[in-house]
């Protein structure tokens, strides 16, 4: 059979399969997406992941590091190391010039961006937007580009996921008096960095915060749903300010107050009336390290990008640790592609050095082969991890008996035996994904909760089963335990599921597996199996963890609950109390206590089990061309003020770059 016949047969097969699609009510579709946004408060991180990611490598980073240069002809560059990235072994290139080893001024870098300027966007609320780089309208699409010029109240520390000062300094907390709770009302006070100015020299003031809030909450403007959702925490009637001070009350205490104002708009330079239409292909007055110059669209953006040109903001107000004015670079050329750009095309673009770095989102890790060998070619390939993780859980409802009448999920010893039998370290080796040490640590790498290690001992399985057998009067050597395992049939989930099933079988189980696209629509909500596997976004930091706790809350209303383990009894009741308190706790110390207690309950009662973290993309870069880029999904350009180019470094510093 030739490929044409094969194609026609496969096409007919697809048509038969596709005949099962029926159009959902479009209005309901829109409403459902809006509702899922509201439901997804627990997933604020899943959504916020795309708009709010931290930066603090600039606070905790090592200096862009260049190994001592060979004084003859070979320069060896070592990639930088950060708390959040893993890098390939040092790349070696042969050059004639001896490149600088410390950040230096000068140069323009070319950056391939995930920003799509071709087809616009349809977000979770189901509304269509034109292609735009306006981050208030479409932050997930515009972030890479807009972050070069648009500052925010805060940055997130990628090492901990917590908010760090930017325009607002310090981050207000209950500890420093920036947040005061009285009679159940929380009042937040911002102190704006006294040096923060827009590119025209106008100070960034309370007026800009109030104006930005009004833009976001204006029903006539298409601000994106999750920006509006989080800013609905502000009681608008109380928002006021004067000069460098802003104050407002929260509608209710919520730890996500730290994530307010991730973008700021200059009140004196932008008109609200034209805001929705005026800023789709250029950006307003900068308050960031660069200023927008111009945008040259491409006629064939799926193969050749449009380019957005930025140059140094000579009035940028931040300094490096040595007191040198930032940014280091003279300019940035952001390359924006169309939606049909493929990994091989991107790889070719990068391989010909048409770009200096490909930001995450364009290189599919499963197609990495098209990039070639980093060591041979001299580039660095940095994985982009985010807080996505794979986990398994136990179905506790009676519906599980329809698939596995012998399900023993109600028995704690049984659940513990299953978790002990599943070797997540082996799964990590098989998938190449690192073990998720805990749910909390996945969102907040600095938060180490040692509660799951009790299951990292497969040898315990036999003892646990023996103890269970004694307790329920069953001899597992003659009547093996049975398990039905289900997940969606993604490439990675199948690998993980097969590995887990094989491990259970090796420990004496009879296992059936079911991988189906209806996992999220039928198997999980209806409880068709007794072990399920899925992936979740943990989010960033304690604020998101507070809401992630809700995902496992067995006391949620019936139409919001994801899985119901209330049959476990008292631990489930306590968990529900924790979840409720965590939603309204502003004290980070108390919040950490709640997060730790919640995960301890999940672990000790073997309710779920975090397995491995997921890699979402890869970031290749030419180390002689650019240093200092830290891949942070959704906010990759947040470190642009600290980027520098060894190959383009000049002798002279730009005017005004001397220490402050």
């Amino acid at each position: 059979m030739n490929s044409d016949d094969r194609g026609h047969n496969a096409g007919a097969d697809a048509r038969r399969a596709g005949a099962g699609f029926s159009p959902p009510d479009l209005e309901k579709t829109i409403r459902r997406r809006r509702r899922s946004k509201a439901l997804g408060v627990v997933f604020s991180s899943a959504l916020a992941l795309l708009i709010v990611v931290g930066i603090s490598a600039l606070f905790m980073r090592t200096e862009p590091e260049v190994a001592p240069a060979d004084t003859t002809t070979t320069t060896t560059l070592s990639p930088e190391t950060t708390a959040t990235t893993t890098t390939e072994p040092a790349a070696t290139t042969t050059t004639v010039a001896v490149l600088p080893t410390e950040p230096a001024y000068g140069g323009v870098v070319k950056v391939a961006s995930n920003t799509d300027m071709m087809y616009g966007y349809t977000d979770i609320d189901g509304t269509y937007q034109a292609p735009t780089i306006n981050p208030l309208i479409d932050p997930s699409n515009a972030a890479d580009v807009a972050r070069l010029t648009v500052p925010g109240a805060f940055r997130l520390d990628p090492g901990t996921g917590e908010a760090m000062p930017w325009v607002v300094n310090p981050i207000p907390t209950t500890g420093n008096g920036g947040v005061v709770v009285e009679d159940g009302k929380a009042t937040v006070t911002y102190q704006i960095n006294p040096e923060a100015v827009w590119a025209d020299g106008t100070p960034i003031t309370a007026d800009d915060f109030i104006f930005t809030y009004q833009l976001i909450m204006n029903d006539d403007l298409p601000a994106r749903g999750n920006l509006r959702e989080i800013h609905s925490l502000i009681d608008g009637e109380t928002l006021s300010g004067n000069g460098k001070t802003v104050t407002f009350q929260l509608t209710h205490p919520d730890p996500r107050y730290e994530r307010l104002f991730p973008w700021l708009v200059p009140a004196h330079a932008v008109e609200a009336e034209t805001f929705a239409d005026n800023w789709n292909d250029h950006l307003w007055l900068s308050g960031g390290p660069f200023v927008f110059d111009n945008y040259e669209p491409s006629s064939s953006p799926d193969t050749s990008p449009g380019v957005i040109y930025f140059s140094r903001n000579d009035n940028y107000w931040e300094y490096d640790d040595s007191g040198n004015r930032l940014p280091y670079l003279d300019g940035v050329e952001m390359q924006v592609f169309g939606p049909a750009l493929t990994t091989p095309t991107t790889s070719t673009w990068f391989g010909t050095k048409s770009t200096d770095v490909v930001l995450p989102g364009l290189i599919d890790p499963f197609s990495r082969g098209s990039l070639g060998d980093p060591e041979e070619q001299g580039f660095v390939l940095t994985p982009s991890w985010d807080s996505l993780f794979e986990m398994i859980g136990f179905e506790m409802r009676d519906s599980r008996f329809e698939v596995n009448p012998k399900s023993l999920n109600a028995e704690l010893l049984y659940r513990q035996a299953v978790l002990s039998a599943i070797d997540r370290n082996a799964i990590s080796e098989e998938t190449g994904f690192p073990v998720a040490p805990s749910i909390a640590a996945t969102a907040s790498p600095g938060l180490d909760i040692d509660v799951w290690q009790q299951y990292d001992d497969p040898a315990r399985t036999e003892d646990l089963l023996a103890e269970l057998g004694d307790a329920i009067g069953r001899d597992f050597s003659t009547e093996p335990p049975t398990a039905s395992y289900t997940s969606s049939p993604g490439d990675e989930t199948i690998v993980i599921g097969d590995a887990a099933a094989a491990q259970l079988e090796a420990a004496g189980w009879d296992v059936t597996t079911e991988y189906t696209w209806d996992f999220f629509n039928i198997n999980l909500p209806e409880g068709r199996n007794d072990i399920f596997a899925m992936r979740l976004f943990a989010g960033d930091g304690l604020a998101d963890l507070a809401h992630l706790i809700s995902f496992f809350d067995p006391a949620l209303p019936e139409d919001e609950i994801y899985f119901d383990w209330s049959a476990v009894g008292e631990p489930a009741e306590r968990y529900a109390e924790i979840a409720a308190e965590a939603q309204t706790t502003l004290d980070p110390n108390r919040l950490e206590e709640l997060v730790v207690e919640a995960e301890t309950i999940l672990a000790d009662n073997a309710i779920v089990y975090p397995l491995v973290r997921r890699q979402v993309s890869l970031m290749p870069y030419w180390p002689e061309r650019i240093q200092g880029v830290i891949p942070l999904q959704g906010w990759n350009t947040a470190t642009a003020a600290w980027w520098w180019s060894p190959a383009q470094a000049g002798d002279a510093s730009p005017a005004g770059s001397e220490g402050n």
Partner: protein
Amino acid sequence: MGRQSNGGTGDDLPVVRSTPDFGAFYRREYAAVATLTMVLTRNAAAAEDLAQDAFLRAHRDWDKVARFENPEGWVRRVATNLAMSRFRRMRAEGRALLRLSPRTVVDAMSPEATEFWAEVRRLPGRQAQVVALHYVEDRSVDEIAAILGITSGSVKTHLHRARQTLASRFGTREEAP
């Protein structure tokens, strides 16, 4: 009456072209568009999201889209472009993760078809789009060119290269169509 009027009753009033019914368009085209996105994504849930995205766009701009010469082609172009975007697929899959509502059960394809479309998804984006439109919908070269907004010659080139690649992967000889 065969035509619509602007409210008058006499045949002497000017003919006003009505806007075609979006609902009918949606019901008629949805399954076919979702099938296209399914073969290009392999993920039925994501495919439905992408198809719905495309129709939401058509709905939003229906006054304009309805007057296009080929709104059916327009919505296919948008949907297949969306499907070829890795980033958008990831987002759609993320949405699928969040959605727990009942939805259509899609029959599994045969192993041979599954294998074929898996190879198609490895093709460069434009080639995959052309192959999907050609084999799933039996579209002619000219029709595909109109849908994707490229020349017929370009379609032929993409189709030829795709067939060559697929033939080599399946260990068969590419024959002239």
